[in-house]
């Protein structure tokens, strides 16, 4: 019987999982399959430094050729998996080749959600997910003057900030009444709007794009539900992603907007794991603790991949790392620890006008998440403090400017 780990998806989770298999002592073959032709690369800088031209391509590489060789990981790039045959324990590649596995990992990531309006496939309608997207956007930004960003989440706002930095006129169109409403309390949404407007971005809230208007097959503008037309040369769509769970579903594995895995990262098939943006997993930090969620972050991809590799090779553990995220927009460093719930009570610490403040999320009276702007110390402290779910000394939150830990106690 073959002794081979096949990893489908060669981004953050896939790479981490392949190397983690070696750290778990797996001595068989490791084959890492990637659909893109570029060797595995870091995604976060794509919408930030790479788009602005301050981070070169060479600096994006996740692992060197030598590192893959040393860990005896075979990279199959530009390779698409079309099916998984779990009965035969084989993956089927485009072209028909069948590759046997003893262990299989799904790190297929997510696909961008596309606008479903007339004109959505015009030239100049771009997304922000992979290297090709970033290159296309950088090229369009060079040629263009005016950009419309559809979606005021992290990706859209980072793209807006980067495009502004490249000298384009930028309008952000957000369907919700405020920016990044899914992840941020109103206070932070307002601050973000002020930030972008101060940098000359037009922010339209509660606005629905109903058509992308073209001229000669190219984008010329977008039309909003209220009839307004916003002229532009390029449109960046950042309205979220959809977990790539088709292969798993077609292979008879349980999916629900993501591949369903247990806390150790395994599917119901003990020889198949999933990790990263494609994996719906029970998470102790979810607003309803233990509820199955998908987390789209590098930190989650890396942590979950390590846990999944351990489980595949007989050392099941629990994926329970405190989730954290970050976003860089202009010079603002926005960092989040824990997962927010819309019902959280929010306490403000620091002064938003100074660009240095934190929002403390209280749930059942205990600290559940912290959003920090320009306050890396608070973020670092929060990542550690959250694990103990401390109570917060409310009376001092507004006035105490020292360490966050001073405000927290086990209660």
């Amino acid at each position, binding site marked *: 019987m073959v002794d081979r780990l096949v990893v489908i998806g060669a981004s953050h989770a896939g790479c981490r999982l392949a190397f983690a298999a070696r750290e778990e002592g797996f001595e068989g073959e490791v084959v890492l399959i990637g659909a893109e032709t570029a060797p595995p690369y870091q995604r976060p800088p794509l919408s930030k430094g790479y788009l602005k031209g301050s981070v*070169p391509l*060479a600096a994006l590489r996740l692992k060197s050729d030598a590192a893959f060789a040393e860990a005896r990981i075979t990279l199959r790039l530009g390779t698409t998996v079309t099916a998984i045959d779990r009965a035969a324990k084989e993956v089927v590649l485009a072209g028909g080749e069948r590759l046997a596995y003893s262990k299989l990992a799904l790190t297929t990531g997510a696909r961008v959600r596309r606008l479903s309006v007339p004109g959505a496939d015009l030239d100049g309608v771009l997304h922000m997910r992979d290297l090709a997207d970033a290159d296309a956007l950088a090229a369009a930004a060079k040629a263009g003057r005016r950009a419309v960003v559809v979606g005021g989440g992290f990706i859209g706002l980072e793209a807006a900030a980067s495009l502004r930095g490249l000298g384009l006129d930028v309008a952000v169109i957000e369907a919700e009444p405020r920016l990044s409403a899914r992840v941020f309390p109103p206070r932070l949404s307002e601050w973000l709007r002020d930030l972008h407007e101060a940098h000359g971005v037009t922010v339209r809230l509660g606005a629905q794009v109903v058509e992308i208007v073209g001229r000669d097959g190219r984008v010329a503008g977008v039309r909003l539900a209220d009839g307004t037309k916003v002229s532009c040369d390029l449109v960046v769509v950042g309205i979220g992603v959809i977990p790539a769970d088709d292969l798993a579903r077609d292979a008879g594995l349980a999916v629900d907007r993501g591949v369903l895995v247990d806390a150790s990262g395994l599917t119901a098939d003990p020889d198949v794991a999933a990790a990263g943006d494609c994996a719906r997993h029970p998470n102790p930090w979810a607003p309803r603790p233990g509820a199955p969620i998908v987390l789209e972050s590098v930190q989650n991809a890396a942590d979950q991949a390590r846990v999944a590799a351990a489980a595949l090779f007989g050392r099941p553990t629990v994926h329970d790392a405190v989730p954290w995220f*970050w976003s860089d927009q202009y010079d603002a460093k926005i960092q989040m620890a824990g997962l927010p719930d819309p019902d959280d009570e929010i306490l403000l610490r620091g002064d938003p006008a100074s660009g240095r403040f934190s929002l403390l999320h209280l749930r059942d009276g205990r600290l559940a998440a912290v959003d920090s702007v320009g306050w*890396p110390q608070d973020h670092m402290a929060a990542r550690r403090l959250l694990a103990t779910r401390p109570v917060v000394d409310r009376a001092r939150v507004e006035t105490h400017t020292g360490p966050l830990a001073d405000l927290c106690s086990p209660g």
Partner: protein
Amino acid sequence: MTDVTFILHDGTRRIVDVADGISVMQAAVMENIKGIDGECGGCLSCATCHVYVESLEAGELPAKDPDEDALLEGVAAELRPESRLACQIVMSPALVGLVVRVPERQV
């Protein structure tokens, strides 16, 4: 290309030849140096590339950005005067004989 020596937590030394313009974090992640995670990709957000600078024969390390200082305050391993975030040390031929020690843990 410039050599950087990493001393791993178990005492193993590994020498990596780093291209100009690439940070010590990036090189460590690319060459799979155990104990340097570099999860944020060098955006100064995560503090998972903490190293101790042991020695430098020639050249000068870049001064610490206030954000680097702020993140270092929260590192998991002991904070020492020679603590740096490896993502902030970008290699150039001017930096000769850089030796960094990888701490016990990053998170």
